């Protein structure tokens, strides 16, 4: 079983559309959407949810007013400015700012602070037309997205083993921070989807550096390659220097968004040049990992 992660560093380069398209070319597949706070893959793949799980992670502090003597100890020890002073001098904790470190709980002389577990979201095991899919919805503004990513990836691996699937295809989050690191850990290869813009090139370099830091085989796919031919050449030169192989080049195509409206991937929607390019990308990837 091999795990392929699709990332981009910069958002909006077409990572999710390409993941959805690749799904058509791999026969024995489990899909995972690790972009847990802005997931879009489900819009194309229309998963039928089989099972829903709560994602419980960490704690949030809450002051019981009846026991609080307003000694201000919690206010003084909280490093995250989560303890706020109300208009009548009452203290309360802003759940959004609370990091869940528990220091106020230890320090409160009155034991006036509760510390319930927080429900940080939900995750789902579903069926799609391309095979099983594991995806999630992080609670609004919640922390621990990295843990949620690890949790759903763990489940996907279990499913792949039980159902003897060959490939786990992962749609990754943007950036290089904690959910991206959790997505990278233990995958067999990373495909960085970039585009010929200075911003995307800058971001590509950072995500390649991160993947290398973890020692993972890294490939690049240039999307919208014809919007700036000169920069497309720049990317090719840069990745040569970085010793990263180009595995695909896809033209700018408005059919991506038109396909979205019909809840299809571009390869299910059209037979044009873009579809051919994606097919080539899929074949290249296949040859790389097997």
């Amino acid at each position, binding site marked *: 079983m091999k795990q392929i992660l699709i990332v981009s560093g910069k958002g*909006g380069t077409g990572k999710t559309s390409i993941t959805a398209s690749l799904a058509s070319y791999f026969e024995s597949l489990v899909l995972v959407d690790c972009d847990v706070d802005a997931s879009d893959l489900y819009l194309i793949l229309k998963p039928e949810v089989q099972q829903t799980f709560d994602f419980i992670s960490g704690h949030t502090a809450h002051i019981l007013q009846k026991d609080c003597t307003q000694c201000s100890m919690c206010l003084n020890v909280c490093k995250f400015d989560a303890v706020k002073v109300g208009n009548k001098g009452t203290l309360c904790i802003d759940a959004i700012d609370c990091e869940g*470190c528990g220091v106020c709980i230890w320090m409160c002389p009155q034991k006036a602070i509760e510390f319930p577990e927080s429900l940080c979201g939900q995750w789902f095991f579903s069926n799609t037309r391309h095979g099983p899919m594991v995806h999630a919805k992080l609670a609004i*503004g919640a922390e621990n*997205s990295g843990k949620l990513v690890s949790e759903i990836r763990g489940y996907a691996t279990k499913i792949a083993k039980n159902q003897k699937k060959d490939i786990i295809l992962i749609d990754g989050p*943007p950036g290089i921070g904690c959910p991206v690191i959790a997505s990278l850990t233990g995958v067999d290869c990373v495909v960085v989807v970039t585009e010929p*813009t200075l911003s995307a090139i*800058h971001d590509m370099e950072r995500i390649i550096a991160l993947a290398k830091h973890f020692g993972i085989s890294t490939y690049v796919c240039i999307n919208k390659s014809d*919007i700036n031919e000169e920069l497309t050449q720049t990317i090719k030169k840069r990745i040569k220097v970085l010793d990263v192989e180009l595995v695909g080049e896809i033209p700018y195509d408005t059919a991506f*968004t038109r396909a979205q409206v019909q809840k299809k991937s571009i390869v299910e929607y059209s037979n044009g040049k873009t579809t051919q390019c994606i097919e080539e990308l899929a074949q290249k990837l296949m040859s790389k990992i097997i």
Partner: protein
Amino acid sequence: MIIAVASGKGGTGKTTISTALAEALEKPVQLLDCDVEEPNAHIFFNTENETKENVYVKVPQIAKNSCTLCGRCAQICEFNALAVIKEQVMVFDELCHSCGGCKLVCPEKAISEVDMQIGKLKRSTTDGITLIQGELDVGRAMSPPVIRAVKKHIKSKIINIIDCPPGNACPLVTAVSNADYVILVTEDSLFGLNDLLISIDTIKKMNIPMGVIVNRCGISEKSITEHLRKKKIDILLEIPENIGIAKAYSNGGSILSVVPSLKNQLVQIIAEISRGVYEANTHR
């Protein structure tokens, strides 16, 4: 005044709008790039006179000779960053949230806090625009402390524009907290709408007034603006799809060089927002 420019989905034009705002508004303005995992605003400015400083977080260091291995530090640590094994306490810097709890509870005063570098802060000023950019070091997981370090430079007397990280998780919340107004940028597509609706819920929960700029109008057969109007969401501006904008952006050029009329529109939007903010503050 603090105006945060955010977007659930990446690549919708968040940085295009933040940099255009900095360019269009009366100077001096500050542009704070809080997209610290992938900061891009600097690409649109001349940053020759840039100065740099490092961003650190505090992590515990344990003095072996005073530690009695009592284990209280590991007990209080909610993030499993400390473990007492055999003859010593192990510190896992990567997991530490710098809450200071271990130092507080250590009965032997064996714990001190030391700096660990997790990022950089870059600062430059051109034509009255001060750009302060946070940058998370590659390999580090936690971006909120770097975002907080950038936000320490907010100046209350002038306009501060915050270029937020994408998504709807804790980095976004850290970037928009304390903002007077949030401009949400979306693209006119199904993905854009889906992520925008999550962002709207997030900002609502934080009780910050907001409005939406719909970028790349017309890229999809069915515009999302109607849906937004039905939900009574303030649409501040609609920018039609224009390949010229994408071309300019690709080379680090400004949207205002392609659509000069946008300048006045942006100035007006901010004037209206600041009137609203001013009124809200006097009512308080």
